[in-house]
């Protein structure tokens, strides 16, 4: 490989007592795609934020083409040719694609250079297959398109090194292919790329080299990811073997959740059209599908956030009438939302508050309108211990926890009440493999105890490993249901595109 494009030497960064990075060395050559791996909280994002100028390192230096540089702000980073696509995008939703692209770009003699922007946008689109409609407002773009815009923005500003922090966590499998093609095309032109992901098969397919972080330090380097097994990488990340849990045979009991002919009217995503399904005690039903095909509406109806226009739903044999969160909970439904940070938790309040939020009105946590602060605290402490949630205590701000720990907290708050049915969306999105493994095990435990579980997800391999049956959603309907014994990625993929109807109603 040629001389490095950028080099980080001996980077250390602490937050109070937490050593997020310690003496990390890392370099990227032109044309190289570098994978950055590590458990949740290993320090990947922190390291990249140091490179992008958001944090000043406590020690260490950054070299660009051999020259030491100081990067004190994102403006410095951009000027040095470093672009970053954060996990949460930084776009102005009401402005158009083109306007977003031109924000902060000095125009020609005080005027915005629209024509130049359009030309460059088209050029970048052609070169890497990153096409975008320049006139559309950002609010009308899908998540994948917004991400594409972030990449184009970085290229537009002349980035020679592109950092992507968990870009695939928000993408559907087909979108991932498009992203990878674009990244390979950029690397072929001599760009350096740093790619962060928890999905080891993606890392193996895409990257040329990997750096693995553990507790802020470099735990290992992988020079040939393509010929290194996922379990070897996992061992580097966690320090021990990760064995996928085995799903034993189950003997499903009676139906604990049924939907009959459920339809919803217009919805911000896709509405439901005549959906019928049943989940039995002791089984896990997967709901696969390209996101935006009604999964959100389905989750909202079952969670009691959205009342359907027509159709019936029962939980543990009882009809749901009001479709309120309190009602479905009282009937024995546990719920884990898709978006932990915005729907699940209150990031600015203590963790304990988030852990009791859905049941604050019940006898467990209040009486006659008065809170039971001791009971709330004790509950949170108990769950923190039981689920090994890493945090200083129940009064920590929830937003300070890592993704894996937040997910454990949400799981704990539902499972503590022995639900008869559990509905979860994207249960392991953004989690490292150790944390994902923990969540999977809990689901299998619940299944063994006779809980019926619905898992809505896009990761087909996860669904195949976890579920007894998998239903596929397409345009608001269930396109078919497969027994997991008969299901393959290929057959599911076919159903997901709307081709070929198979099986009976779920």
């Amino acid at each position, binding site marked *: 490989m040629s001389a490095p494009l950028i080099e980080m030497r001996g980077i250390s960064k602490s937050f109070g007592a937490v050593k997020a990075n310690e003496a990390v060395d890392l370099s990227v050559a032109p044309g190289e795609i570098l994978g950055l791996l590590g458990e949740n909280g290993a320090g990947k994002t922190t390291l990249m934020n140091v490179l992008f100028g958001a944090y000043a390192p406590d020690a260490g230096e950054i070299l660009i083409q051999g020259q030491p540089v100081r990067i004190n702000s994102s403006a410095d980073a951009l000027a040095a040719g470093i672009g970053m696509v954060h996990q949460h995008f930084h776009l102005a939703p009401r402005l158009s694609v083109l306007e977003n692209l031109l924000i902060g770009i000095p125009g020609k003699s005080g005027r915005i250079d629209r024509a130049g922007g359009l030309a460059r946008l088209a050029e970048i689109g052609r070169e890497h297959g990153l096409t975008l409609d320049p006139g559309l407002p950002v609010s009308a773009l899908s998540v994948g398109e917004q991400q594409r815009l972030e990449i184009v923005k970085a290229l537009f500003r002349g980035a020679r090194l592109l950092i992507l922090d968990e870009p695939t966590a928000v993408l559907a499998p087909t979108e991932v292919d498009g992203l990878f093609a674009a990244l390979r095309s950029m690397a072929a032109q001599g760009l350096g790329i740093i790619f962060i992901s928890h999905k080891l098969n993606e890392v193996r397919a895409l990257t040329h080299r990997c750096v693995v972080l553990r507790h802020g330090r470099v735990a290992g380097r992988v020079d040939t990811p393509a010929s290194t097994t996922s379990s070897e990488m996992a061992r580097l990340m966690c320090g021990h073997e990760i064995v996928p849990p085995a799903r034993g045979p189950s003997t499903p009991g009676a139906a604990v959740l049924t939907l009959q002919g459920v339809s919803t009217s217009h919805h911000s995503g896709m509405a439901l059209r005549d959906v019928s399904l049943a989940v039995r005690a002791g089984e896990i039903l997967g709901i696969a599908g390209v996101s935006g095909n009604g999964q959100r509406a389905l989750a909202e109806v079952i969670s009691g956030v959205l009342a359907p226009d027509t159709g019936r739903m029962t939980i543990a044999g009882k009809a749901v009438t009001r479709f309120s969160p309190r009602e479905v909970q009282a009937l024995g439904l546990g719920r884990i939302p898709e978006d932990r940070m915005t729907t699940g938790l*209150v990031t600015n309040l203590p963790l304990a508050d988030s852990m009791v939020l859905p049941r604050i009105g019940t006898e467990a946590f209040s009486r006659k309108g008065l809170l039971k602060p001791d009971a709330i605290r004790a509950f949170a402490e108990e769950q923190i211990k039981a689920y090994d949630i890493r945090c200083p205590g129940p009064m920590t701000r929830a937003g300070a926890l890592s993704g894996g720990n937040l997910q454990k907290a949400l799981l704990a708050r539902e499972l503590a009440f022995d639900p008869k049915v559990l509905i979860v969306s994207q249960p392991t999105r953004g989690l490292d493999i150790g944390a994902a493994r923990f969540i999977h095990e809990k689901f299998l435990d619940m299944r063994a105890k006779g809980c019926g579980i619905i898992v809505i997800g896009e990761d087909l391999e996860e669904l195949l490993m976890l579920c007894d049956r998998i239903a596929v959603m397409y345009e608001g309907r269930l396109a078919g249901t497969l027994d997991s014994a008969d299901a393959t990625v290929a057959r599911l993929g076919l159903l997901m595109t709307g081709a070929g109807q198979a099986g009976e109603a779920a």
Partner: protein
Amino acid sequence: MVRLEARTSTPAWFNLALPLLAIGATLILCSGLIALAGAGVAEAYGVMFSASLGDSYAITETLVRATPMIFTGLAVAVAFRAKFWNIGAEGQLLAGAVASCAVGAIPMPGLLAMFLMALAGAAAGAAVALVPATLRVKFKVDDVVSSLLLNSVIFYALMALIEGPWKDSFSGYPISPPIEDSANFPVLLEGTRLHLGVVAALIAAPLIWFLIARTTLGFRIRVTGENPEAARYGGIHVERVLISTALLSGALAGLAGVGEVGGVHFQVMSDISPGYGYSGIVVAMLARLNPLGVVPAAIFLAAVMTGAEAMSRATGVPAFLSDVIQGTALLAMLVALLFTAYRLRRVGAAR
């Protein structure tokens, strides 16, 4: 070079240190103005202090002034906790004053009159606050704008009342008829104006603290304010919480008006509130929306107000300085609040 860096947790002592820091910065900044007005800074602040907190009579006067601001401060603190942006405490106070004055003018036993005055004042304030809350919940109308504009509506309605039907026919002044003597709030200390409403305010603060910190309604208010989406998913009726918050907030602001009518003026006139409703915003921010902090914050502002008048008489510095101090204190506090989310970090020179 120094720059801001996000922090993940806020040390507990910030709650106390930040307001003190803001007040300190305010006094330093305003000393420039005192010097400009040609007075000695130490002398001016000395007069301010002794006139507001220097002896027991001064202290009672300051407490009497602080009382309406404790109520409006609580009103704003409760509302802002739910992120119901009630800028209308001024109008709610006036409505409370008018309603309690109307009730107080009806002859009846004193205790009953006082009770009904409080009830009517609270109800009137709540009714006024209900308007912006309903507009927001039902039609997504911005509550800052609607609650603020409503203040003028209420103020001119009050003017119409005291220039019209309530006008004093004997003197011709635009003031309402006085309430019954028996409805005057009892004075607690002979020779001062320390009235029952002062005690009510001092009791209200811990009650509201308890409500926010220890009741399910308070929990719902906090959660709704911080993350309405998570609140809704968790089974909280966000709209209902906003309406309840507005009613509570308006009632508290209304009580501020009741105290002024029953304990200080015994009638309604156009300048019954020198902006106590707006001062409530400053008080609530200085208190960091903590109901217990509202009491010292209101006393501070009251001391500034009473002190500024004395200072003006003694040194010739215009009494408007009191308004400047209030405004500066609010700005200083807003800047200080930045440090709960960010820390300053020294970095090397840019490359």
